[in-house]
């Protein structure tokens, strides 16, 4: 694990995020952006839910036969002239890629977007070994200039404002006239396009991720809107794909099933502008394309998740729908989670990959509203999996003493129904007096909660009282 894990500091990071004015402005765009676009895209496809069922079942089938599909994939990559390198750990993956770059005497490498390379800390590793990686996805390019990591699966610079991008471009692109106009996002895009064109045309190695790997044909698939991944892999001498073992799918038809769900669930579009299926290096007679094709397949703890309580998490296709619909993500953004993955999928995957000792705070950062499971294209029961982690954390005594005392106190009431009913109806009455029909801006002992939102005042009777009344009326 070479990417440092800051997840244990979740609480302090969340506090900083809530007080960060520009971050809060950036996060306020969710309802009109991702959520509305996905809703419209789903409404255009009546078969959406049936496709999700098929995708869930197919992923379960793949995971149950993962060794055999990986063998078939490896055989077919080799048959098309490519090379597959398996890496059990992040360190192994980084060493393999460095070896390829050194052999080709590469000084600068172009990179398409890859979360797996974030997991291995590839950029820092290459940099430390004298090789300069250049991120080519616009969002990734921006955060690389800022020395940051992605804050969202598909929109890595989500947390950055236009003004900040302008300041970064002026700071770094010092060869350009200082008086140039960068008021519009379009002029920023044009400047990045011009800067990166040179990189594409002169690099020796192009590194991309993969959204899927096709066992039938030995193909890797990337989806992009910008076309940066295609330029990265087409113009370099060697195309290096860095991906993880659970991304393999059996056939082209199976990849197609997932592609119908991926962009629709994430960015809320029918498809991304480019979906590219790459199979091996340049063929005889080809006027363009890479001369070498390598695939580095990272495990990094995934194989240990098979057959256990968290296997369902390996169905994830990284669409970002769960992040986009998560009230906690909306409030604190991606960096607060402290490692590579954020939102509900990050809260489940992080403890699986880095251990519950370091990642255990994340599954607690949930309101359990269930929206993540509702929108997941492969129907991962994210709330259930987060609850599993909470139980493990409790069993291993990893929570702070106050949380354990609080739970113990609650349990003392919950085990005595008469006492519980009496105490909750009293508490409701008291809160009702203070809050009237509205919301409570502050309460004793709950400053941490009410600083950023109001506590809803109870309206009328307790749930149990209403339930009993309803039963009696029948």
């Amino acid at each position: 694990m070479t990417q440092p894990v800051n997840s244990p500091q979740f609480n302090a990071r969340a506090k900083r995020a809530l007080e960060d004015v520009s971050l809060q402005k950036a996060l306020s765009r969710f309802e009109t952006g991702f959520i509305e676009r996905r809703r419209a895209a789903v409404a255009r496809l009546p078969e959406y839910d049936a496709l999700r069922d098929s995708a869930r079942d197919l992923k379960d089938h793949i995971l149950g036969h993962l060794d055999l599909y990986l063998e078939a994939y490896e055989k077919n990559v080799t048959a098309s002239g490519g090379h597959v390198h398996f890496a059990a750990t992040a360190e192994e993956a980084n060493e393999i890629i460095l070896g390829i770059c050194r052999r080709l005497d590469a000084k600068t490498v172009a990179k398409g977007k890859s979360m797996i390379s974030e997991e291995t800390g590839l950029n820092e590793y290459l940099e430390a070994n004298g090789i300069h990686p250049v991120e080519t996805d616009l969002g990734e390019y921006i955060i690389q200039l800022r020395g940051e990591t992605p804050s969202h699966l598909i929109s890595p610079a989500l947390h950055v404002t236009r003004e900040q991008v302008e300041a970064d471009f002026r700071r770094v692109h010092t060869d350009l006239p200082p008086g140039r106009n960068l008021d519009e996002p379009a002029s920023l895009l044009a400047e990045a396009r011009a800067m990166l064109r040179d990189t594409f045309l002169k690099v020796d190695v192009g590194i991309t991720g993969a959204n899927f790997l096709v066992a039938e044909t030995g193909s890797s698939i990337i989806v992009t809107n910008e076309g940066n991944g295609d330029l990265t892999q087409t113009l370099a001498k060697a195309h290096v794909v860095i991906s993880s073992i659970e991304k393999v799918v059996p056939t082209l038809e199976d990849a197609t099933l997932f592609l119908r769900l991926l962009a629709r669930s994430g960015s809320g579009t029918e498809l991304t502008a480019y979906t590219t299926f790459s199979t091996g290096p340049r063929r005889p007679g080809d006027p363009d394309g890479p001369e070498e094709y390598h695939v580095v397949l990272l495990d990094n703890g995934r194989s240990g998740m098979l057959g256990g309580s968290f296997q369902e998490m390996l169905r994830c296709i990284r669409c970002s729908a769960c992040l986009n619909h998560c009230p906690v993500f909306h409030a604190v953004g991606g960096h607060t989670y402290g490692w590579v993955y954020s939102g509900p999928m990050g809260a489940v995957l992080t403890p699986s990959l880095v251990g519950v000792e370091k990642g255990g705070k994340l599954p607690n950062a949930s309101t359990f509203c269930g929206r993540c499971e509702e929108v997941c294209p492969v129907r991962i029961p994210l709330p259930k999996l987060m609850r599993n982690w909470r139980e493990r954390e409790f069993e291993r005594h990893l929570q702070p003493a106050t949380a354990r005392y609080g739970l113990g106190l609650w349990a003392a009431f919950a085990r005595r129904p008469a006492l519980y009913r009496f105490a909750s109806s009293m508490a409701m009455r008291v809160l009702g007096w203070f809050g009237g029909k509205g919301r409570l801006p502050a309460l004793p002992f709950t400053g941490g909660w009410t600083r950023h939102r109001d506590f809803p005042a109870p309206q009328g009777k307790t749930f149990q009282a209403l339930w009993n009344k309803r039963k009696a009326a029948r």
Partner: protein
Amino acid sequence: MKGRDAVFATIRKSLAVSDDDRLRRETVEARLGKHPRNLVPSRGQKPAGERLELFKQMLDMAKASCTILGGHEEIPAEVAAYLRARNLPHAIRHGEDARLALIPWAREAALEVTKGASDGKQFASVSYAFGGVAETGTLVMLSGADNPTTLNFLPDHHLVVIDERDIAGDYESVWDRIRERFGELKMPRVVNWITGPSRSGDIEQTHLLGAHGPRSLHVLIVRRPG
């Protein structure tokens, strides 16, 4: 253990399986060999007569433009008009596709036509699509000398010719045609699905066209390619 051995050993241990389980192997081989179709949405199963309309509609949604031409002989004038309307240099580049070679480019005397891959210096390229998918307005391009991949990405303007009869309803029909052409388990080096021009929403979720690839995608649908 490191690398490959470690990965496979842990997978098999976690799944509690051995590598000589015949039933598992047969299941996997059957799926790979038969490549069964999954659910295909009804939007992808329109009859031939309704596909063109859907294809146009989806191209529009993807911010691509299109025009319908009777035959190949109309292509030079259409390309010249496209360049003129945008004040672009009268030059295009295309690959070795035999169908493009038959187009009477000489009818547009001012149009400079060069052949080969792109080195990033061209403003406009012309490619011939292998197929189209009406479901999403997607063009299916194959790599090789006929239609070099760089022509899909480096020029600012990408003009793509497609025969109306090659517009399928769904992606699956195009996979079948690729298997017919190249054989089972074989793929051209690159298959590009292209759905609209290059775009980015990375700055404040503002959607802009012309990120790293073409700023504009224009599709020329030929009804009677001859």
